[in-house]
């Protein structure tokens, strides 16, 4: 983008701009402020900004990973640290897998004519629309009952011997089970978005590389991939966002040890007496990674959004 000259506008436009920014960020700032307040301060509500900031809420939320004992807490009920690690593993691994598998598939759809290409392309587009709620029932059933290894079998027996537990070894309750459904859910979207970036790679470059004796995989990984980096960045952010934020399927598939952060927040919300300060702190911790992405990569996000929508 070239250096822009800003023409002077009517002050009213700046007023609108400021108001819009206030409206967009207001609720988030409100949550940030409240996460530093004690519940007493939140409920009494005297003076919006006049309070003693405290990190006690964050300490309560992270009590299972803090190296020191907390005075105000005799029992660590909220296992936020563990859930955070689960969320991180699931989101990062599924994003990585989705990107690798997705960009290969997008490349095949754009650059090759092969049997079944049209079917593959149309069904990918249709699968993009399947909402998580629709997948809930079948995924719950399959992951619990069918995608299992027999406990008496070779591999299943080995897993049972190492990790203990009863019954057959099933996908439900494992990190891999959640990762599998996230990869599948995000693939259609990633393929769709990357197609529009791969189309723009000049064919001559690939042909030149092939002339120099590069095989199809070398062409793809050494020539095409570096050129679609912006597209990959956009796709990565969107995939990570869904895997990081998703609640419904994770809640159906996870057990005590594989809970992700959204599940933790919802479980704590539905209690009768909501501890606002602590819950705002957990919410803030969950929101931080996406906020950081947005502030540093807004250009890529906007490119990705427009590429996804404009190229129907």
């Amino acid at each position, binding site marked *: 983008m070239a250096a822009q000259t800003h023409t002077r506008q009517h002050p009213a436009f700046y007023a609108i701009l400021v108001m819009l920014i206030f409206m*967009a*960020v207001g*609720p988030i700032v409100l949550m940030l402020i409240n996460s530093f307040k004690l519940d007493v301060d939140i409920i009494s509500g005297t003076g919006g900004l006049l309070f003693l900031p405290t990190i006690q809420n964050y300490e309560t939320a992270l009590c299972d990973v803090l190296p020191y004992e907390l005075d105000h807490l005799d029992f660590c009920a909220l296992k936020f640290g563990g859930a955070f690690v689960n969320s991180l593993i699931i989101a990062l691994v599924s994003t990585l897998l989705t990107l690798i598998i997705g960009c290969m*598939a997008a490349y095949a759809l754009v650059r090759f004519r092969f049997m079944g290409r049209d079917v593959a392309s149309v069904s990918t587009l249709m699968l993009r629309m399947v909402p998580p709620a629709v997948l809930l029932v*079948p995924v719950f059933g399959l992951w619990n009952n069918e995608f299992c290894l027999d406990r008496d079998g070779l591999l299943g027996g080995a897993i049972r011997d190492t990790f203990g537990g009863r019954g057959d070894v099933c996908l439900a309750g494992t990190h891999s089970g959640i990762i599998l459904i996230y990869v599948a859910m995000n693939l259609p979207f990633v393929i769709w978005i990357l197609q529009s970036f791969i189309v723009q790679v000049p064919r001559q470059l690939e042909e030149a590389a092939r002339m120099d004796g590069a095989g199809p995989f070398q062409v793809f990984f050494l020539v095409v991939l570096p050129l679609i980096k912006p597209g990959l960045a956009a796709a990565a952010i969107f995939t990570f966002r869904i895997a990081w934020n998703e609640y419904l399927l994770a809640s159906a598939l996870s057990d005590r040890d594989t809970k992700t952060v959204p599940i933790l927040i919802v479980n704590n919300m539905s209690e009768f007496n909501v501890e606002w300060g602590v819950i705002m702190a957990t919410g803030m911790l969950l929101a931080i990674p996406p906020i950081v992405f947005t502030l540093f990569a807004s250009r890529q996000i906007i490119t990705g959004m427009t590429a996804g929508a404009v190229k129907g």
Partner: protein
Amino acid sequence: MKSTLNRLTPYVFFMPAAVIMIIALFYPLLYMIWGSFRRWSPSQQIGETEFVGLRNYISLWNDPNFAESMGVTLKFAVSVVTIEMLLGVGLALLLDRNIRGMSVLRTLFILPMMIAPVVVGLMWRYIYHPTIGTFNRFLDTIGVERVDWLGQNALMSVIIADIWQWTPFIFILSLAALQSLPQSALEASRIDGATGWQQIWHIKIPLMMPVLIVTCLLRLIDAFKVLEVILVMTEGGPGLSTEILALRISRTATEFRELGVAAAMSNYLLILLMLLTAAMFTYTKLQEARANRLRMAVEADD
């Protein structure tokens, strides 16, 4: 040898994606359709369940709660999309000029979309809280009577929260569309003496139309997917007033433990979404065909 390898290349590239999508999307969808014809509780293997034919579908069709939930879903989706389109496109038209601070606005505008729906629901549940919430405190300060946000007006409150979260999406897409309009057309109309409003109605909006329609359909499809925000804010209540279909599916499966009925419900939702997708698909195909015809006509003229 070399040529068979080359012929296999596209399959090798597409295979991993195909395998995963078949195992974790296609097969589950078929499994769901199969399950929707059975009486199925979560503790049963699907093989042990009883085949009941279309009974799940028929009883849903006659179930007033399901009808209510469907009504809420449609009301939610239609009002959210309409208001967001009007606001988003309006703001884009208004702010499509060189203003300092525009890029800041765009960056901050994406934030609501990127944050977890669970967190969005949490924020708004606090804002709407009857006694300590921001809105009612503000009403107290200016001396207006409190509003029962998540009680009597729950659906409206949920709609407002969604508008906050998703209007920026439409704003950013329409702004991108506006800024890629051919400058020559705008220039020509200005020379012909068109006023600002005439430019908007006769040039900008018609030229933006393809993007706007796709955006609108994308948003509509997404509006049927909303679940977490509402779950955290109201849990579908009070009564059934905010129980959208996605929420009802998850409650039927987990609370009422009737997987067969939930599967049938999912199928109704899926059919609805497939129709919308098909509409979008046909629309883009038609658009491409029209563009091709125009190009052919131009080339024939040369």
